[in-house]
């Protein structure tokens, strides 16, 4: 894997003032990285044909190919060049957590990711929409592909404040019902909360033929629990405060965390949902690169 430019390190990005500036830096870095990379662009530029599978709309069957090869392929090229991407952004209070070693809070990091993805989608002339939520949908920006739409996306993200409890599963179920048109749904969240409801929501999106991508944004401290001194843990999202000796709890906590991550991961895999765990100390271009290349590989 290539070494990320220093400018894309979260610590560097944290010094940049606005989200737009951060997103530009990320995308530019990402694009610059493409010149050195064998990968090609956004993964939605996949092959022209896709093998038929039962349930596919026969209207898109490419008869010419069938005539030549005696195999059923769907013509997808035209359709997917008009891709609609919805970024579902978790703005619950837990996203405001920022570990002692982290340069950005999970919220800020996720904002950078969301802005960068939006930028990339729009650069390919596709439409991108933004839904922010906590217990319910807080803001919704319909998909658009105009040049000014990115400003809207960034504005909504900028205005987004972490508050209230989260109910990702409920929101995803609601979205599954509301999003009629098949689209790419990118979920940016720490996925803390009711895992069962979350997986139910993801399955609902999957059943609606949405192409779901899950980026679970976690702080490194949440993954490693690095505290040594007695600590008062002030609970976000209305959890009570707890005083504990982290050294005594580390093993049990990490086991719980591991179990949760494994459950989410397994649930996504079962629904063929692309999943990646993102730590907020990872360079964003690397995240984008690895995630998109992983996705490209899988789609092919």
């Amino acid at each position: 894997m290539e070494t990320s430019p220093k400018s894309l390190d979260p610590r560097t990005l944290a010094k940049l003032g606005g989200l737009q500036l951060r997103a530009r830096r990320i995308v530019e870095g990402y694009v610059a990285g493409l010149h050195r990379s064998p990968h090609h662009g956004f993964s939605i530029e996949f092959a022209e044909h896709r093998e038929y599978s039962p349930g596919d709309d026969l209207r898109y069957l490419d008869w010419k190919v069938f005539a030549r090869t005696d195999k059923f392929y769907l013509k997808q090229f035209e359709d997917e060049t008009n891709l609609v991407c919805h970024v579902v952004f978790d703005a619950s209070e837990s996203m405001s957590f920022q570990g002692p070693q982290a340069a950005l809070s999970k919220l800020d990091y996720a904002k950078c990711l969301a802005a960068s993805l939006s930028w990339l989608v729009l650069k390919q002339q596709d439409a991108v929409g933004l839904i922010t939520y906590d217990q319910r949908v807080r803001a919704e920006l319909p998909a658009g592909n105009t040049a000014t739409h990115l400003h809207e996306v960034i504005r909504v993200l900028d205005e987004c404040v972490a508050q209230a409890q989260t109910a990702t599963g409920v929101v995803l179920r609601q979205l599954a019902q509301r999003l009629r048109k098949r689209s790419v749904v990118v979920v940016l969240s720490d996925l803390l909360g009711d895992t069962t409801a979350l997986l139910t929501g993801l399955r609902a999106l999957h059943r609606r033929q949405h192409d779901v991508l899950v980026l679970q944004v976690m702080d490194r401290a949440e993954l490693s629990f690095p505290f040594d001194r007695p600590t008062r843990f002030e609970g976000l999202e209305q959890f009570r405060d707890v005083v504990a000796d982290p050294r005594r709890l580390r093993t049990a906590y990490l086991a719980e965390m591991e179990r949760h991550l494994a459950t989410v991961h397994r649930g996504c895999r079962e629904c063929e949902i692309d999943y990646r765990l993102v730590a907020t100390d990872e360079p964003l271009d690397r995240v984008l690169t690895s995630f998109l290349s992983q996705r490209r590989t899988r789609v092919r």
Partner: protein
Amino acid sequence: MTPPSIFSAWSFANIGMLAWGLAVGIPIAIHFWNRRTQQTVRWAAMDFLLTAIDKQSRSIRLEQWVLLALRMSILALLAVALADPLMTGLSMLQFVPDAKQRQHTVIVIDTSYSMATQSGDPISNNQTFFDLAKSQASDMARQNRQGDGITLITLATSPHAVIGSVAFEGEDVVREIEALTISNQGADLAATITEVERVIDVTARRHPSLEHCRVIFFTDLGRTTWGEIQTQNVQRLIAALAAKADVMVHEIGEPTRDNGAIARLSTATPLAPVHRPATYEAEVHNHSLSEQRRRVEFLVDGTAAAQQHLTIPAEGTAIASFSHRFDTPGQHVIEARIDRDRLLLDNHRWLSVTTPTSIRVLCVAGRPAAARFIALALNPQATGSADFQTDVVAEDALLDSELPGYDCIILANLSRLSQEEVQRLGDFVRAGGGLITVLGDQVQADNYNDQLTNAASGTTLIPATLAELVRGGPHRLDALQYQHSLLTEFRGHEQSGLLTLPVWRYFKLRLLPGSETALAFANGDAALVTRDVGRGRCVLLATAADADSIDLSSDPQVPWSALVSWPSFPPLVHEMVKFAIGGRAARQNFLVGEPWDVAKLGNGSEQMIVRDPLGHEEPTPTVNTSPPGGSVRRSGVYRIEQPGTDLPAQRIAVNLDTHESNLDRLAADGLPSQFIPEGDGLDASRGLGSDAQPSPLFRVVLAIVFLLVLTESTFTWWLGARSV
């Protein structure tokens, strides 16, 4: 008796160190400090954290309690170890009062001279049993609990309450203990127990808050002292004492019988004149259970004169002797000593002797032949080389005679004495001369009673007043079991004729206070009486010692006695003279503890300096002191100087009564049941105090601390490893 308290089984050598126990608060303080200095983190993944806490909380709490307990225990035990904990022994639980009850401890320290026995190896270890007793009693006193009282009494011939009024400060008691010196005598157990009981009674009245009392004897359990315990009197005293206090015995030192002692140093001729050899005998007693070979060394005036090796059977005696002739008249000191053993005190003995040029006797005759037989008895050959040189003078020549040139004056049937004569005789006797008064038919009893027992002049030159003349007879003599030293030579010689001597006339004598009867008549009347006057001695014979004293008033006429013709006459006269002039010699040799009438030695002088064997000046009683004198306390040679007179310094030999030299012990289990013996676990010194050495308990506590530290470290490591 109060119920036992488990805490009373403990004591601490350095109780102040327990203050370090406050350090147990440190882990708690650290715990609270950690809580104060804890970091605060806003946390998102609370769900997982709470689940982890739920799962771990019980074990975490348990671990934390265990850790806290471990750390506090380490600090607490460390403080205990610093305080040098001591366990008094479980038997102490049976009689020690509970912690709240104040107690009175009577420390009784044996000061009999057997306690001067050296402990262990006599060469490398100079500590005596007495030193050990003082050290252990001091340790006990130092551990005195606040509010408890201590009294201190010596177990001695004359027991002394050194601290008779309760002391509450241990250090005060320690000072008194350290100032104690060993006596040169044995000990009187009954008297000591009586004194202890008296002190307990006084303390109980003055300090009723001291509810509990115990008596602890620090003693070697020497049989010479403790053998008395079998007597009914002592058992009764102990029973009475045990009713008031717990009585304990702390046996000092190790049993040993390894001791030899010079039990006697004497001479058969205490007044051997100059150039006349005299034989001196040292009787050495071997108290050990095996035959011993001892070297006896004789010193004359500090110079080695002879030595002799003796083989002495087990528990037997042997006599070493040597002959010596003094070439200069005056006072001399003979010393005998034996090789070093574990008890040094009885390895020396001294004898102070006076060597006259010759014993000069002045016989004053009431009639020309009155002293003839006496002079003849003293110097039969009438030669100048005899031990006794006699001069016979008539009654009226007494005033003309140079009395200080004589050692003894014999008044033989003098009719009467003038005041001037009495005055001169008084000076003579007080200066150490001997005066023998022999009665007879010429004696005017009233004159004698007036002049010679004149209390107004302060001069008493006869031991008794003369009463009526006793007739009848013949009256026989009673030697009174030869108890009087004047009759020492007659012991074992019942055939000497002393008891068969017929007496038909004698003056009934009424003894003056202080006089002693040497011979009596069979009817109980005194026949020969003696009295000390100043440095001299007076002897009074109730009948006549001449052939001319005849009772003319009776019919038929009878002589006063057949004394002059009787075989016991010469030795009796010799012994009378020796006794009379032996006042000086007898007053030159004492046993420790014997009454010491220093005032009498002073010839009336009030200026006297008494120096003990170490050369220290001692307080001197004067003639005006009542009672005059005291008793000597140390064996050795004392010097009595009289700065105001021309008299040379007297050297007084003071020796031990060597009964205490027998180091045989009473077995602790031979003590009456009222005593709590050491064999049952009592260790009085440990009971309250500490050993000079670190106690085993101290090491045990440190070992526990060490184990706890290891446990804490391992436990912490295990917890850390588990939480990684």
